[in-house]
């Protein structure tokens, strides 16, 4: 055997397959298969080939074993094989298919001996379903009875495709593979969503989800409201404000549905504080900020710490960071808003500027009544 032509795990599979073959032809098969393997292009094709070699080796071994047995012993083996109980678990459609196949063989036998008068209409009735016609054609082809096929062709139109080897995967395997892929994808998505909230779902989806699922808090039309959240976050809500709060394991999220509020977010290990304003999403680890939602406009003032502004792709549809309504170009807003910075955002525009301490305090003057 000349090593080195084909190497790696696929060649190893072929090597192991050849070892399963009868000793007398084991070496020949290994060399032959490795040579044929190297003539194939593509890893998938080679892997399929190698796995097929495993099956081939077993089949060859079984055939050799059967031919070395004396004739009487061969009969015993054949009898045992035919008497062996089939696997107990069968899907309903599998049982039905088997019954159709048995009927097909019975009808082929009857066709060979010649149909009796009363059997003709019965056969015609049996052949009515297409599945029956396909099954009996395949059974006839497997038995290699050209006369059977000729007779069948007189009874109904036989499509040659029925007896040709099926190209590609069987539908059952395709469906099973599809289901498995769907399950694995769902698991991966669930894991990602739980470990990195906000990464998979767009802010808009999360926002509406939050609004529907979160706990709502509202302030009166003429009164301010102050409340504390489970992680120690302090919220002061201006008049006519509504927020929705959703705290779950591993995530803390708040949504400003309308109005204006000031948040003081304490740090919490490995927990990002997500907040949505309308459909816009922001996040911070720890900060103090005031946010106001007026119609479609958002004004976010960072008083302390930093707030992460979403990348461009997370803005609302049609959003353009740098072009405001008046058409004058402004520098795009930073990804990270620092203390004393104001983010002004409206439909089709987003801009940031730095405030003085007094300007920042003026923005939360409403808290003093």
């Amino acid at each position, binding site marked *: 055997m000349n090593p080195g032509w084909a190497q790696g795990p696929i060649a190893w599979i072929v090597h192991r397959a050849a070892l399963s073959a009868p000793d007398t032809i084991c070496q020949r098969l290994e060399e032959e298969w490795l040579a044929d393997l190297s003539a194939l292009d593509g890893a998938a094709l080679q892997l399929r080939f190698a796995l*097929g070699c495993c*099956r081939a080796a077993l*089949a060859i071994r079984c055939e050799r074993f059967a031919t070395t047995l004396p004739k009487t012993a061969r009969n015993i083996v054949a009898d045992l094989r035919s008497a062996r109980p089939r696997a107990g678990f069968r899907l309903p459609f599998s049982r039905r298919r088997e019954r159709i196949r048995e009927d097909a063989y019975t009808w082929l036998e009857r066709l060979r001996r010649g149909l009796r008068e009363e059997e003709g209409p019965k056969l015609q009735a049996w052949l009515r379903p297409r599945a029956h016609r396909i099954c009996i054609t395949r059974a006839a082809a497997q038995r290699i009875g*050209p006369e059977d096929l000729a007779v069948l062709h007189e009874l109904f139109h036989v499509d040659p495709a029925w007896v040709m080897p099926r190209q590609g995967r069987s539908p059952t395997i395709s469906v099973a593979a599809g289901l498995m892929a769907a399950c694995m994808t769902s698991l991966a998505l669930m894991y990602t969503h739980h470990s990195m909230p906000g990464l998979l779902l767009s802010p808009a989806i999360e926002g509406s989800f939050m609004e529907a699922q979160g706990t709502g808090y509202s302030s009166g039309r003429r009164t301010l409201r102050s409340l504390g959240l489970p992680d120690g976050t302090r919220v002061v809500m201006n008049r006519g404000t509504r927020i929705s709060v959703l705290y779950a394991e591993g995530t803390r999220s708040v949504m400003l549905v309308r109005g204006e509020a000031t948040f003081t977010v304490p740090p919490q290990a490995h927990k990002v504080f997500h907040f949505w304003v309308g459909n816009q999403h922001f996040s911070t680890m720890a900060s103090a900020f005031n946010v106001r939602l007026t119609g479609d406009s958002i004004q976010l003032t960072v008083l302390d710490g930093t707030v992460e502004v979403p990348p461009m792709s997370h803005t609302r549809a049609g959003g353009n960071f740098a072009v405001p309504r008046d058409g004058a170009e402004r520098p795009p807003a930073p990804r990270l808003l620092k203390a004393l910075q104001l983010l002004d955002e409206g439909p089709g525009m987003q801009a940031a500027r730095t405030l003085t301490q007094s300007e920042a305090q003026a923005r939360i003057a409403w808290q003093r009544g």
Partner: protein
Amino acid sequence: MDRPNHNVRMSLQTLRVLDAFVENPNDELSGADVLKRCGIASGTLYPILLRLESAGWFKSRWEAIDPAKAGRPRRRLYRLTPTGLKYASSELASLSFRRGLPV
């Protein structure tokens, strides 16, 4: 070699393999060539080739090349024996396999 045996178990795959050889009876084909022509799995092909070889329908030999010069391993080449050609042609003709089943 054993005496050619007409009683070879026939299947659709066996006929496809025979068909690949009967098309050009003088050609010598390796397993990979037959795989490409017939599109059947290797797990089915090699038992068929060995079965037909032991039945005397095929004979095989190693390709006469120097692997070091050719840059590839030598292949096992199969070809139909005259008896094999006769039997194969008769099987294929009776089934009209090459024109698509059935006639």
